[in-house]
Structures are given as structure tokens and as C-alpha cells.
């Protein structure tokens, strides 16, 4: 079955969705992502949807779910690259994705996650070698 690749970048996971999302694919992604976050003890998940032209209510809810699940596993979800038309559609559907952080592009999203990882390091008062990988 078709799967969306999940790339590990240090303490973060990177997902770029470049195919049209259908519901089974979305559910598979949610499962894979949960397993990976737990397995790698990731601190951040970056989902790039700049190639997605159509986001329906199901995909919107799935993004919300992924964010909720990763929060439970102590990872922050950032959705980046949403198109203007998609943003308007989601708002009209009443899905404001309040639990998800957003950024304009991958670069800024990564900066957001990096800040969170750095803050973690400071909190624990130790250097985390994962972020340097």
C-alpha cells in the first residue's frame, strides 16, 4: 500500500505530503507518525502541505488529531506551507486547527521546532546531542 515517507531530522520528524490525500492514506500517516514519535522520542513534527490543493474536513480533522496525539507524546506539531485557498476553505468549514502550530514555510517551521528543542535543553540544564545530529 502507498505510504507517505516520514523523515527523521535530529529530534524532529519531517513529513512532506506530495500526493493527493485520501482518507486511508491519512489514517495510515497518523498511525506511522504516532509510532515514529514514540520510537524516536521526537520533540517536533513538521508537516509540509504546500503541495496540497484540496484539504477536506477529514484531512483537517486528521491534522488536528495528529497534533493532539503528538502533544500527548511531548512533541510539537507545525503545519507549514498552507495555500491561501486551503486556509479560507478550512476556516469556512469551521476548522481553525487551534491545536496546531503553523508557519509559512519549512524553514520557519524548522526554526519554530528548533526553538522548542533548545528551550527543552535549557530546561533540563543539559546538552542534548540529538539536536546536533
Amino acid at each position, binding site marked *: 500500500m502507498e505510504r507517505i515517507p516520514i523523515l527523521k531530522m535530529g529530534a524532529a520528524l519531517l513529513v512532506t505530503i506530495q500526493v493527493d490525500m485520501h482518507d486511508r492514506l491519512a489514517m495510515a500517516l497518523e498511525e506511522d507518525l504516532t509510532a515514529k514519535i514514540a520510537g524516536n522520542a521526537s520533540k517536533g513534527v513538521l508537516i509540509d502541505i504546500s503541495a496540497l490543493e484540496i484539504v477536506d474536513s477529514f484531512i483537517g480533522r486528521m491534522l488536528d488529531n495528529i497534533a493532539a496525539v503528538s502533544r500527548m507524546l511531548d512533541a510539537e506539531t507545525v503545519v507549514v506551507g498552507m*495555500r*491561501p485557498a486551503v*486556509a479560507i476553505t*478550512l*476556516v469556512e468549514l469551521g476548522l*481553525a486547527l487551534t491545536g496546531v502550530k*503553523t*508557519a*509559512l514555510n519549512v524553514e520557519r517551521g524548522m526554526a519554530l521546532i528548533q526553538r522548542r528543542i533548545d528551550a527543552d535543553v535549557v530546561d533540563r540544564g543539559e546538552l542534548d546531542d540529538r539536536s546536533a545530529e
Partner: protein
Amino acid sequence: MANQTDVTLFKVLGGQEHAILTDWQNLLKAGGALQTGRIKEAELDTQCKTFLSQLRASVGTDGGVDKSGNSYSSLRSMLGDISRSRAVQGFSPTETAGFVFSLKQPLFNAINKSSDDAATKAASIWYTSLLLDELGLYTIDVFAKTREEIIARQTREISELSTPVVKLWDGILALPVIGTLDSERTQTIMENLLQAIVDQGAEIAIIDITGVPTVDTLTAQHLLKTIAAARLMGADCVISGIRPQIAQTMVHLGVELNVVSKANLADAFALALARVNKTVVSVKALSRVQKNGPAE
């Protein structure tokens, strides 16, 4: 072709054209057609003259009172032009229709003089009256349509004019909203803002509502939608310029905007600069720092 009444009208128009024209022009001028200064005497004279000769041609070729027929098409298009130009020049509907209706009196006089048979005269006057009424109504139709076009165009222009997205600094956009926020304008504003966020890679957008006269629950909802959409794109929004009375009304209405809001655009801009790690300093302070190094 024509029945009796048509022939009478045609003959009258042919034989006494000059007298009718002079009568009509005097009547129009006495009625104050030129007083407003929106139309020149020569222009009015030409319009009268053309109208009369067109009317004569149309009456000559057609029977009944069928004004939608081909023979009246040139007359109608000419009348259409006249009433369109008057709508643009700002004439009132009465003044515009008066141009046609004022022809009644000179025509009736001419018909009266033309024949001795009372029945023929009555029939001819009835026919002429119908004809002019219909032409007058047509004038009003065109007039109203032109006015509606003008209004529609102005509405479009206003909505385009009043939704600019301004770049204040790298990564900082301002959206001064002027006028009432209805759903159609919200859509335009939203699209403009989101596109500008993508184009400029903006991180923060200031929505300034100094120019919004009232904020009710619906307006607030529209604002929140715009803010939610901008957030989905990865940009934060700050609202500024809520006037004191509007703030009071919103609280009384129970409208809540759960976003950062500042009293004026300057404060919002300062906040936005802080978010992108920039600040505004006076030149004096800057030179002091450069000389002495940063204060401890």
C-alpha cells in the same frame, strides 16, 4: 401602411417641423432645461432637431403604436444615448423624461391647427400621446438602468479601493479596513491578505479597524475568520484602532475577540517590530550607544 392618424401626424411633422421645433425649444428653455448649466444650448438644440427628424422618419415607415418595431430602433437608440448622457451628467429623472413629454404641447398645437375635423384631431392626439408616453417611459428605463450601472461600478471600486494590504516593514503587513465589513468584503480582504502573506513572507499582520464604523457580532465573526485563516498560513494577527465607543458596544454585545489588540496602529507596529526582533530608537540614543558601547 399607415392609418389615418399616422398620416395626420406624419403630415404635421413634415409640414410644421420648424414651428414645432421652435415651440419645443422655447418650452424647454422656459422650463429651465438650461438653468443648471449641465447642458449647452447648442447641444440641446441639436438633440431636439435630431429627435424630431428621427420621429418623423419612424412615424413615416410604421403603422400601429408598436414602438418595439424596427422602424423605431434608430429613434430608440438615439433616445437611449440622450438619457444615458443625462444620467451621467446628473440630471433628475423628471428632467430627463421632461425632454420627451414637453414635446406634447407643440405637437398637439400643430395637430389642432392642421385640420378642422374634430374626430381626426382627437384620434391623432390620442395616438401622438400614446407614442410620446411610450418613448418617455423608454427614456426613464434607460436612465434608471444607467444609474444602476453607475452605482454597481462605484460599489466595485469602493470595495477594491478600501482593501489595500500595505507592507510596513520586512515581514510586517498592515491591513487598514475602511467601511463596513460584510461577508463579500471579508472574502476579498481575506484573499488579499493571504496572498500578500505568501508573496512577502510576512510573519505578522496588523488589522487596523479605525475606519470601521460599527462592529457587531457578525463583523467580529468576519474578523475572527480572517485572523484564523492568516494563522493557518503561519502569520499572527494584531488588531488595532478599536474606538472607545466601539469597544464599549462590543463588550455590551458580548463580542469577544480573543486576539492581541492595541489601541492604535503605532502601538501595534511597535509590537510587530518586537516580534521580528527589531526596534525603533532615536538617533541620539543610537550615537550614544555607538560611542560608549551598550549600557550595562
